[in-house]
Structure formats: C-alpha cells, structure tokens
C-alpha cells in the first residue's frame, strides 16, 4: 500500500519533520551531556604530558590505600573505616540518628575543598594540575575522597571555621584538605617546586598524599619553632620569598607549625618537634634568677616527654661579636652528647674543595653515615634511585660529640651470617650517666676536608676521623603494652649548617636535603610522610640552538614556498582551461 502524498510531505517537511528533527537534536544533546558527565566522573581522559602531570602514580594510590610500608600505622583508607565504625558505634550507643544534635558522621570522608567555582579552575594553567589531580583521587576512591568547589568570596561562611583558627587569610587559589575536624590549608605554591623563583616541577602527589595522611591521623602533629633569639627560619629575600625551606618541609610532612616564644609561652602538648633555627642569642635557664620556668627548663621537660628537638647552627651563628657562645643551649646539647665546638675552641668552619659543588669548597657534598640509626633514616632516599642523592652542607660547622660521652667502636655486622656486611663498622657516643642515650653521626665530610677558624686552618679530616656535619642523639625508650613492645624513642638533632635548609637545596630534586628532612621528621615525630613520591619536573621545551636568522629563514621558506606552489598550480590550471 502506498503512502498518501500528504502523509509523505508531512514527514518530509511538515510539522512531523520538524518534531523529528528537534527530537534527534535533543537526543544528540542529551547523549553529549551524559558522555561529558561520565567522562568527568570516570576520568576518561588521556594524559599526554611527557611526565604525566595529570596522572596520579600507583605508588601514591598504594600509599593512600595501604599505607607506608615503613610505617606500622593504618593507611588513610583504613583510618577512615575506623572513624566510620567508631562513629556508628557511638551513634548506636547514644541512640542518635542523622539530624540529631551530637550525631557523628558515619560516612566520614576526606574532602578536598577548592576556594573557587569548578569552571574557573581549568582556566588557570597551574591550578588545573591541582584540580585534575584532585579529581583523579576522587575518581579512584569515590567512597573515601570527595571534592568540593565553593567560591570563598561569595560564600565566606563556609570558610569561617578555617579563618578563626588560622592567622593567615585563605587565598582563592588555596586548597583545603579536610577530614572531620582536622584540616590542612595548602597554598597553590606548595604544590610546585621552584628553582630561582621559577616553577621547576609539579609536586601535587606528595602534597595531596601528605595532607591526606595528616588529616586522617588520630591526632594533629604540630611542630614549633622558637623565636626571639634572632632566629631566621622565616627570613625572606628581596622578593619576599622564604630563604629557608624549613616550613615548607614541615608542610610537606603534613605538620602544622607555629612560632613559640619560650620566654612567655609553654610548648603545646600536641607539639612533637621543637626547632631552633640559627639562634643568635642564648636561652634562659633557671640560674638567671627570673624565678619563672626558664626556656631551657621548658625544653628539658619537652624532651623528657619523649618529644624531639632540632637545632640548626653554623659558624655564622656565632659571628656576632657579642655572642661567641650560646652557653645555656650548648650545655643542653652537651647533655645529649652534641657540641658545636671542641671544648675551649672556636666553632670550626669546614671546607672541602675535593667534595663540593662546582669547586665552591664551602658547599660540601656530605657522606652518608652508615650506622644502625641512620641506615633506616636514609634507605628510603635510595629506594627508587640508582644512587643516593647528594646532600649538601653549605657554610657548615664541624659537629662534635660532647666530652661527657664515651666513644664506642662498633664492629661490622653481618646480620644473616652470609658473609655480606649488612652494617659497616661505625662509632657512636655513649653516655654513662644516661644509659639509654646514644649519639650517632648522620652526615660527615670526606677525608680531604679541613677546618678553619679566624681564617686559619685548624685541623684536617682523615679517613678514620672525618668532620661531622650533622649528628643525632637518641634516647631509646622501649615500653611494653600488653603483648607488644613499643618504641617511643625521642631525638635531638644538631645540624652544623643553616644553609642546609636553603630553598635552593630543599626545592631541588637533585639534592637529598629535603628527602632526608622528611625522613628525619618521620622518625623524630613518629609521623608517616610520603618520602618516596617524587615531584614531576616540567618539561623543558626550549629550543636552545635556534638563532634569529634560522627562525627568519624557516619562516620565509615555509610561508612562501607552499604559497608559490599553490598559486603557480592555480595559474597553470586556469590559463590552460581558458586556452582550450
């Protein structure tokens, strides 16, 4: 049976045709919208960057899902499961349901909160890396990690809780990683590695991993740094950038940090690590007759609570004509087997032309110490590399064991008796008065180093006795809880170089200064930090060998030749056609 002409016409151009066309277009739009949403949700993108800046590595996923192999603690995912179970049990016990006062979130997640609307993030080239990584994490762990985008200027109330407890303002390019009541605010800059103030690489994986590790811990780790002794931890250059990377390393390790004036403030209970960075004046003791608890007393009490202390000094610390010694601080360090000088001598400046950077004998490339304390601290630095990274001590002072400590020589150890030396022979300091305290070398100079004071060479290193550049004292506190042994050791570290923490070493992946500090913070603070995640260097797209003349020549040739060929072909064809 033939279709009636009128029906055929309606179908072809009438109202029916319009309706069908509209339906088809609507279906195409809906399909596109759905596909776009699915692409965004399941991350069906392909990362084409040379160093996969938009991709999270398997190591990072493993760290979040299974935790750090070196750390016995729970992974962030495991901690979230624990929090959920605890909250559920609490709610059931108290008969609380959702919406009731006191109800605890049974679906607690890590939230990555951006302070701008989502559509503005991929417009910004640098923010886009952070945004894409956050979405990758969300897509990988959708039940444990959520992303949120709120304009902090239009919705200030959302950010009130962060502002009330944070003295800094929250910039719109900041990222807040939050879990329950714990949060970390990261500036955009902290996601990148800078060299000479230029973005050198992208460090988002480590930034996210450390923040997620930090907020899923059951307690907030805090590091305090002393002030009012001329310390220069927050010293800035002429552009306003920090000269030293101590605070950045603490942030990378997932720590909160705060300054503390020990003369007027007590050290907070949750503080795990105290740092004194290049103090130019001494600390008070109870002998000063002030009557109040002295600064040294507070540090002593802090250490007795099994917390750790880092001291950074250099020969320049004592360059002031007024303070040739920091008597009280040095006495405290001596209790822990550490000294910045030999008794009665000046502080020695170590130089080593044979083992230094670019012939600058003051920027020493140090040797790793191989003793039972240091091997676990530094082995993660070599896990993914063919050789240990250079650790640089610039303008370093020689560090000594205090005279009250006896030197003990430890023979080489073959743990599994297979004929291979597992731990080479080493020496350490041992305090007869504090039986649980020992002091170890962390880094030493080479055997060609020399020590200088007042522009005179005072001593030379030997292969058996190199100069110490950093030493760590440990008080081993083994406890017994039910059927498990716990290691609650605490540490005092003395670094003979303030420039060790200079940002030129800390922000560079060439040097191991930052990795060592992350490992040290992990050991000293008993905090898990992602030491094994490397930053991703930005590709160098610069054509270094091209000259202006070359560029001009190529431009002329590539522009003119195809045009001339096309025009000639056109003229030929058209003229030939006209002449037929």
């Amino acid at each position, binding site marked *: 049976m033939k279709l009636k002409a009128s029906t*055929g*016409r309606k179908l*072809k*151009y009438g109202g029916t*045709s*319009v309706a069908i*066309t509209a339906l*088809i*277009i609507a279906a*195409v*739009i809906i*399909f*596109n*919208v759905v*596909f*776009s949403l699915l*692409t*965004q949700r399941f991350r*069906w*993108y*392909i*990362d*084409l*960057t*040379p160093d996969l*800046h*938009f991709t999270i590595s398997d190591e990072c996923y493993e760290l979040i899902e299974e935790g750090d192999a070196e750390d016995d603690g729970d992974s962030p995912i495991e901690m979230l499961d624990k929090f959920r179970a605890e909250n559920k049990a609490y709610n059931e016990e108290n008969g609380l349901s959702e919406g009731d006062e006191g109800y605890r979130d049974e679906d607690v997640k890590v939230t990555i909160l951006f302070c701008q*609307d*989502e*559509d503005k993030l*991929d*417009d910004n*080239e640098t923010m*886009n890396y952070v945004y*894409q990584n956050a979405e990758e994490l969300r897509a990988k762990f959708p039940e444990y990690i959520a992303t949120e985008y709120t304009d902090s200027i*239009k919705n200030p109330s959302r950010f009130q809780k962060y502002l009330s407890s944070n003295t800094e303002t929250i910039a719109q390019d900041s990222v807040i990683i939050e879990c329950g009541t714990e949060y970390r605010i990261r500036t955009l800059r902290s996601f990148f590695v800078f060299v000479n103030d230029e973005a050198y690489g992208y460090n988002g994986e480590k930034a996210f991993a450390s923040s997620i590790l930090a907020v899923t811990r059951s307690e907030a780790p805090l590091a305090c740094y002393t002030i009012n002794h001329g310390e220069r931890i927050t010293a800035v250059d002429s552009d306003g950038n920090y000269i030293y990377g101590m605070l950045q390393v603490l942030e990378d390790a997932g720590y909160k940090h705060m300054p503390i004036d020990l003369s007027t403030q007590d050290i907070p209970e949750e503080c795990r690590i105290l740092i004194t960075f290049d103090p130019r004046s001494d600390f008070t003791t109870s002998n000063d007759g002030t009557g109040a608890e002295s600064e040294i007393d507070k540090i002593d009490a802090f250490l007795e609570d099994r917390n750790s202390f880092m001291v950074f000094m250099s020969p320049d610390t004592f360059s002031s004509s007024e303070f040739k010694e920091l008597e009280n601080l040095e006495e405290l360090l001596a209790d822990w087997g550490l000294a910045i000088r030999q008794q009665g001598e000046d502080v020695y400046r170590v130089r080593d032309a044979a083992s230094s950077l670019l012939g600058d004998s003051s920027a020493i490339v140090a040797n790793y110490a191989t003793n039972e304390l240091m091997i676990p601290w530094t082995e993660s630095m070599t896990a993914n590399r063919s050789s240990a990274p250079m650790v640089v001590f610039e303008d370093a002072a020689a560090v000594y064991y205090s005279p009250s400590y006896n030197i003990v020589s430890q023979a080489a150890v073959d743990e599994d008796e297979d004929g291979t030396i597992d731990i080479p022979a080493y020496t350490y300091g041992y305090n007869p008065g504090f039986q649980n305290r020992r002091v170890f070398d962390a880094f030493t100079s080479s055997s060609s180093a020399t020590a200088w004071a007042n522009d005179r060479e005072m001593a030379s290193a030997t292969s058996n006795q190199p100069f110490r550049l950093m030493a760590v004292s440990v008080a081993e506190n083994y406890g017994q809880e039910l059927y498990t042994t716990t290691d609650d050791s605490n540490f005092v570290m003395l670094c003979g170089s303030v420039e060790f923490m200079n940002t030129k070493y800390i922000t560079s992946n060439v040097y191991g200064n930052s990795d060592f500090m992350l490992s040290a913070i992990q050991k000293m603070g008993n905090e898990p930090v992602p030491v094994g995640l490397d930053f991703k260097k930005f*590709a*160098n*797209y*610069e*054509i*270094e*060998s*091209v000259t202006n003349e*070359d*560029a001009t020549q*190529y*431009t002329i040739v*590539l*522009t*003119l030749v*195809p*045009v001339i060929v*096309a*025009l000639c*072909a*056109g003229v030929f*064809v*058209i003229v030939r*056609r006209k002449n037929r």
Partner: protein
Amino acid sequence: MFAIYKKELRSYFLNAIGYVYVGVFLAISALLCCYTTIGSQTYDTANYFTYIIFSFIVLIPLLTMRLFAEEKKLRTEQLLLTAPVSIWGMVIGKFLAAFTLFLSTVLVSCINFFPLYAYANAEGLNDAYADAVGPVGVGIISSTLGIICIGMAFIAIGMFVSSLTENQLAAAIITVTIIVTMLLLNLVNEYIENYVIRFIIDWVCFVSRFAPFSAGQFDPSALLYYVSITGVFLLLTVRVYDKRRWG
C-alpha cells in the same frame, strides 16, 4: 553521492578559490607555527593549535560559502533536487568535498613541524642540550585531530548557512559571525555570576572544549561534541533541502 563529491572537489580547482584557500591556509599556518615555536624558541605547539583555530574564521567560509548559495544563484539547484541521488547523498557529497580539501591542507601543513623535529634530533645528539624534550608527538597528533574535528564542524555550519541563502557574501558573513560566536562565547563568562550558566557556555564554546588538548590532555567528550555538531548541521541542511524538494 560520489559524482557530486568529485564534481564539487574539481570545482574548487577549476577556479581560483581552491588555490587561494590552499595558499592562504598554508601561509597562515606556516607563519603561526614559526612565530609560536621556532620564533619563540620553544617546542611547545599548544599556542599554534589555539591560534590556527582562529584562522578558521576566515578560511572555512571561503570553502563553504558557495556550496549551496551558488547553486541557488545559478538556478542549478533544481538539477540537484531532481537528480537520482538522495538529499543526504547530495549534502554529504558536498560536505566531503569541502572536508577533503580542508583535511588535505591541514595534513600538508604538518610539514611546519619538520624543523622542530630536526632541531630536536640535533639537540638530542648534543650533550649540551640534554635537558630538551623536543616536540611531543602524541600531543601534536591529538591536537591535529582536535582541529580537524573543529574544522569539520565549522564546515557543516558553513554549509547549512550556505543552504539558506543565494548570496555567497551573506553566507560568508553569517558563517563568520557564527564561528566567531562559537569560538569567543566564553569571554562573557567573566561577567556572569551564575555557575550553571557559565558551565553551559563553557560546554558549548569550541575554544573551552579544546583547552584540555592545549594543556596536554585528550578529552574524548570534546571530539564527540565536534562530531555531534557536524551531524546536527548536516541534518539541518538535509531538512532545508527536504523542504525545498517536497514543498
């Protein structure tokens, strides 16, 4: 359909328009490539691909303005409408002719990348330049695919506009207007407070959808979008001629 395709493709080269298009496109692409890469001493081609899209504002209307407008003006469209070929066949034949010229010109313009690879090779052999990465081949391929899909969509839009008018100039101007709008729509986002509206505008804007390619990310939903635009405007062109044939 194949006959229409051949006829249309040949017609581009029987008068000046094909040669002008090829010459202008290759000149513009060479200038842009040299300016954004060798002239700027960088292997990064992201800026080149972004700028070349804006050259379509002028070049695509050159290809599409006469596709149907000329037939109408010369009153030869009756021949097409009564020919033993479906409307779809006719539309796709003309579309493919324009697309073939566009695609072959884009592929020929890839010779502009040869100097980059030559420099990358030379620097790769020289230890003094050990740091350089050279042009990212995968990125170039995906961006080229992206601009081909964008060009394809613009050709479909231009062809639709051409089917609506018999004046080639009007067809060109309207096509330019639409292309400029589709490319620069996201500029208004700066003044829009509502996130949903900004999201929709970003979703529709061609440059916003191409941005991931520039950044080094292949976005399959963007390619689907461009292909969908092509399909929709081909459908609309067919509907216009369906109405003419049966009206």
